[in-house]
């Protein structure tokens, strides 16, 4: 610290530092008080109460379709509401729309950037959004004319100052929610590209987001490299709840189907369940033999099963209530980078660094 030239400045600087220190300690003591309050209501563990629940029987899920066509690592995928089409994006900039049921490729677009880390299907099924190292989220309307060049109709919607890590349409083709390496999330109007709301609060890259499954709700959850999972009010831009129990980056967040809880997957090799009403972490899904990070998580339709895609090429299936692992699925030959359950829960899809996507049921 440079020595102040004027004595008054010295006193002012000292006063400022004192104020900052005072505020910092106040903030920290409030934070610990919050942890205390949260812990007070922890009268029992979820898996203890779940002992009375019937165990799940023998679990058999297999690869039912393998989608080959990407020339490089598959980074992201999303389902169409029609329960059979999917969009996927990869490291080499290719975005492909498939009819996963027949394994036919229906559309393909080459993005002008590599590492397309985010892609999403519009609710109408008539458009897809994607982005990555270009710091943007672009929307491509899907043409019925196979010969039409999709890239020509591309619409740039979101602009961030760092890579796009995730994107999702709200319940409309007209709004997109994005998360970015610039530490923010943002809500955009697709038609005009106007920023409707921005969300500040993460101290590092935001890696994932998920919209709450409510008809009336206006909230979403995000996870980041600051190990925090934040719940946001879309209308005000405020962070309404925050959870920090992971030991490393949170790569994936997904709401429990009722909307009262959400799961997260992290580089610390664990998945965790946070309940919004209890306002705390209520379960950890981990095993001594699982040491590679979780890239992606999603629930089965009833919320009883949690599927996790891992960097050790496997998928672990967890019993959400009892906390035990039900099954481990092998098949991919490299990291599983993305995992989503289909809209009607009949299957889930995984994308991998081995260039393929698989549909499991």
């Amino acid at each position, binding site marked *: 610290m440079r020595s102040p030239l004027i004595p008054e400045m010295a006193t002012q600087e000292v006063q400022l530092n004192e104020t900052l220190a005072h505020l910092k300690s106040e903030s920290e003591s409030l934070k610990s008080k919050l942890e205390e309050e949260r812990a007070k209501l*922890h009268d029992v563990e979820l898996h203890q109460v779940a002992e009375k629940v019937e165990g799940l029987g023998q679990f058999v899920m297999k690869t039912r379709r393998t989608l080959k066509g990407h020339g490089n690592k598959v980074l992201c995928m999303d389902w169409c509401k029609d329960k059979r089409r999917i969009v996927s994006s990869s490291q080499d900039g290719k975005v492909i729309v498939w009819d996963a049921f027949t394994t036919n490729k229906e559309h393909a677009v080459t993005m002008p950037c590599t590492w397309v880390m985010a892609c999403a299907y519009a609710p109408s099924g008539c458009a897809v959004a994607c982005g990555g190292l270009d710091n943007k989220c672009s929307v491509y309307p899907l043409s019925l004319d196979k010969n039409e060049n999709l890239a020509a109709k591309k619409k740039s919607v979101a602009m961030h100052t760092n890579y796009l890590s995730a994107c999702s349409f709200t319940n409309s083709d007209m709004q997109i929610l994005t998360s970015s390496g610039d530490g923010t999330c943002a809500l955009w109007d697709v038609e005009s590209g106007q920023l*409707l709301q921005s969300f500040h609060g993460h101290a590092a890259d935001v890696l994932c987001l998920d919209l709450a499954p409510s008809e009336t709700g206006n909230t979403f959850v995000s996870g980041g490299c600051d190990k925090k999972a934040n719940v946001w009010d879309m209308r005000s831009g405020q962070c309404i709840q925050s959870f920090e129990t992971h030991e490393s980056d949170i790569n994936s967040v997904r709401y429990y189907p009722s909307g009262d809880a959400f799961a997260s997957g992290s580089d610390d090799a664990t998945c965790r369940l946070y309940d919004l009403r209890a306002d705390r972490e209520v379960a950890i899904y981990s095993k001594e033999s699982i040491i590679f990070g979780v890239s992606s998580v999603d629930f089965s339709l*009833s919320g009883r099963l949690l599927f996790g895609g891992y960097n050790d090429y496997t998928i672990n299936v967890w019993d959400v209530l009892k906390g035990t692992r039900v099954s481990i699925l092998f098949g991919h030959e490299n990291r599983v980078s993305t995992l989503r359950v289909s809209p009607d829960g009949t299957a889930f899809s995984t994308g991998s660094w081995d260039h393929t996507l698989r549909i499991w049921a």
Partner: protein
Amino acid sequence: MAQTNTGGQGTNGVADESPNMIVYRKMEEVIARMQEEKNGIPIRTVKSFLTKIPSVFSGSDIVQWMTKNLDIEDPVEALHLGTLMAAHGYFFPISDHVLTLKDDGTFYRFQTPYFWPSNCWEPENTDYAVYLCKRTMQNKARLELADYEAESLARLQRAFARKWEFIFMQAEAQAKVDKKRDKIERKILDSQERAFWDVHRPVSVYGLQNDIRTHSPTHTPAPEAKQPTEEELQEQITFWQLQLDRHRLKMSKVAESLIGYTEQYLEYDPCLTPPDPSNPWISDDTTLWELEASKEPGQQRVKRWAFGIDEVLKDPVGREQFLKFLESEFSSENLRFWLAVQEVKKRPIREVPTRVQEIWQEFLAPGAPSAINVDSKSYDKTTQNVKDPGRYAFEDAQEHIYKLMKSDSYSRFIRSSAYQELLQAKKKVNSTFFKLFSMLQSKTYQDFEPTAHL
């Protein structure tokens, strides 16, 4: 050799580590346990023909140890994890360049910590050239170059033709040092050095090995955290205070709720209850989807509407039936208002002001044709909002109407005869008949042989 500090290892230790580093540390913990004298893997010297093979253990030893010590039930899982550890080079088969784990008598050896991935190795081609060159200088059968290594050496000689003398000198110097070592020690070190190169210059058959060390551009080391400003600290304090004031539920209550939800939806979860007639992905038969797309809702689907108002609102057929029922009672304005407000939130921002006015005129303005009843507080607020109309202009009114519908119209709908009829009388259309019907309508006739059915 080139070592780089790409891992973002800060002085804080674990806190700053890149995702790869976290995994390396965990694997190293396992390796340390494997090497423990008491409970580790038994390492021994095996006598074979005229030679001794020092410091080895078998693949089965590894699998057995992992199954016992890492809480693994299935040896397949142990094999998978073990193969990943071998691919990172933590132990290696002494007679093979391909780094996998086999559950048999194949001999493996531990890698020396000097060569561990956590030291952030990024060896250059010149280093590889020196290594291969050194191998050719040593007159040992076991050090003979494999075909792919000979090819690599040839390529490197062409690439570094101008500085080959320098490379040769380095190789010579290293060979000289190696010669001085004890015979057994040399055997071990030679194999460890080879395993190192198997990780960093793998034989192309196992090309994907390279990707193990790749990480995505999202995991760049975090920049130094800035000291928070006074304003930021005030914001934090406000946030914590708000959080403290939040009403929380006891864990026991929350657990019951989560359990209740999953039990209620168990029969609707295709992963747990096979869907009727079949799961299209398993049977290759899309009847399930066709039934869902039809206007005739099945019994199971109708039953779900009774779980809560959200179930009716999110199912298009449910909404239709609910609206129909309310229209029959001449009380549909609440639902129509709610649906209209949902709709306006989905429009492009450009269209919002017009739509808001339209909704105001239809439902809330004095003398509105479909007047709805909201409490005076919401009404006043809405009147204000409409003056500067945004997407959330009707938020308060919509919330009030939703609560009203939930407690009043919705419960009447579920008790109504219209709903009960749908629930009880309507058995699902016989699925075989439906299948035949849909086959007749389907675009491809490949599977349909009319003569067989007649």
